[in-house]
């Protein structure tokens, strides 16, 4: 299989269009299953009561917020080193969904924190570094769109994204490095401290968030390709047919 075949925007445009619906279908099915487990089947948490059910959104979106930034930074690195057009477009397409996930993680965290910690917000390391992540996404999008020449926006924003990667280990390890209000991870390789239904629900919701993010990115990258390749012959022939 020739991977370079799909690295051309014109062929990837078609591929993304064919794949995106399947990812959305997978996301919807997984979300239905995950929400069924999380909202209807899973028992109450003995300490926190029902509010712990926020975990089924909070943890998946928080994971995705970091993972999407990592993937975006990888595409940025590719676009800087190999000067490939499609990877820069993919990075641009990921950023809004990543920002949305970050926002949801912060928002649900606030509504989880209020009944359990007694406050919507604390300036602890985990929360602060996640907020910085949100601003990194905003900065990336603003910088990418701040130039007349989109290729320059690609490259400048890619460099910014790569500098911001430093923030990822800070978010991830903040609960271990600092004594914070935010609880440590309840999922580890040694075993978990959670009820099995809760864990299944959380993992299913995470898979759903992942599929959703891929679907949204593929749909958005099609628009990015159309915007950028507006003057090429293949885009011209697209609507005329």
């Amino acid at each position, binding site marked *: 299989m020739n991977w370079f075949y799909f690295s051309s925007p014109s062929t990837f445009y078609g591929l993304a269009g064919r794949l995106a619906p399947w990812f959305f279908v997978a996301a919807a099915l997984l979300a239905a299953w995950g929400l069924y487990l999380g909202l209807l089947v899973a028992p109450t948490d003995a300490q926190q009561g029902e509010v712990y059910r926020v975990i089924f959104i909070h943890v998946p979106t928080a994971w995705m917020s970091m993972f999407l930034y990592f993937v975006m930074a990888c595409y940025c690195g590719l676009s800087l080193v190999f000067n490939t057009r499609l990877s820069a477009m993919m990075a641009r397409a990921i950023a809004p969904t990543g920002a949305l996930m970050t926002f949801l993680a912060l928002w649900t965290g606030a509504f989880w924190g209020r009944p359990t910690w007694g406050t919507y917000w604390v300036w602890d390391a985990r929360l602060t570094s996640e907020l910085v992540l949100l601003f990194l996404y905003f900065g990336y999008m*603003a910088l990418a769109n701040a*130039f007349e020449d989109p290729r320059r926006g690609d490259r*400048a924003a890619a460099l*910014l994204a790569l*500098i911001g990667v430093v923030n990822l280990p*800070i978010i991830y390890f903040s609960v271990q490095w600092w004594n914070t209000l935010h609880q440590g991870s309840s999922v580890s390789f040694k075993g978990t401290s959670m009820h099995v239904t809760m864990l299944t629900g959380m993992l299913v919701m995470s898979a759903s968030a992942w599929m959703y993010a891929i679907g949204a990115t593929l749909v958005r990258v099609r628009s990015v390709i159309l915007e950028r390749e507006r003057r090429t012959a293949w885009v011209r022939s697209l609507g005329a047919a």
Partner: protein
Amino acid sequence: MTDTAARPQAEGSFAAGFSWAMARDLTLAWRHPDEAVLTVAFFALVASLFPLGIGAEPQLLARIGPGVIWVGALLAAFLALPGLFATDYADGSLEQMTLSPHPALGWAAGKVAAHWIVSGLPLTLLSPLIGLQYGLAPDTLGIQALSLLIGTPVLSLLGGACAALALGARGGGMLLALLALPLFVPVLIFGAGAAEAQATGMSPAPHLSLLGAGLIASLVGLPFAIGTAVRIAVD
């Protein structure tokens, strides 16, 4: 003979590029000292506004002093950023630097060093004076100055990278604020944390060593990033 004589200059080096760019920017700053003076004046002014707004209760001032001084230093460092590359970009001398035989790493680091000497260093030296106004204890003053000494170069490096990235972009100052201020946040936390730990009788060492780690990481990675960003801008 002429060939061998010309070669060392044509090859260029990190040290030569560094000292050349730093000397150039320092000379420029010396000829037009208004910007450096404004930075320091801004810092002193911001730090003096807080007691007027919050109230001059000694205990309260000693409590907020380290944080206020750090926020003032951060804002002052930010204000000095647009001048770091923008004028050289506008008059074409930045493009000349990328064409010079010296590696980008050298002159980029040199320019940032000059920026720090003009903005960060005076603030560090001035900080004990401001700290006295806030009634900080002598040992806290020392830790405060030390944290600024380690932290302000990080601000200059991070800010320099953002300023280089934003060259020629629409939305100038606001864009620069959106890029730079979030990146400044960790420096602010550990910098202010060091003096606060000292003031409350805890050890400032963890904060200072994290700041130091940040400084080393920035020194290793950011001059290269700044050089790349300038390349992107003049391409």
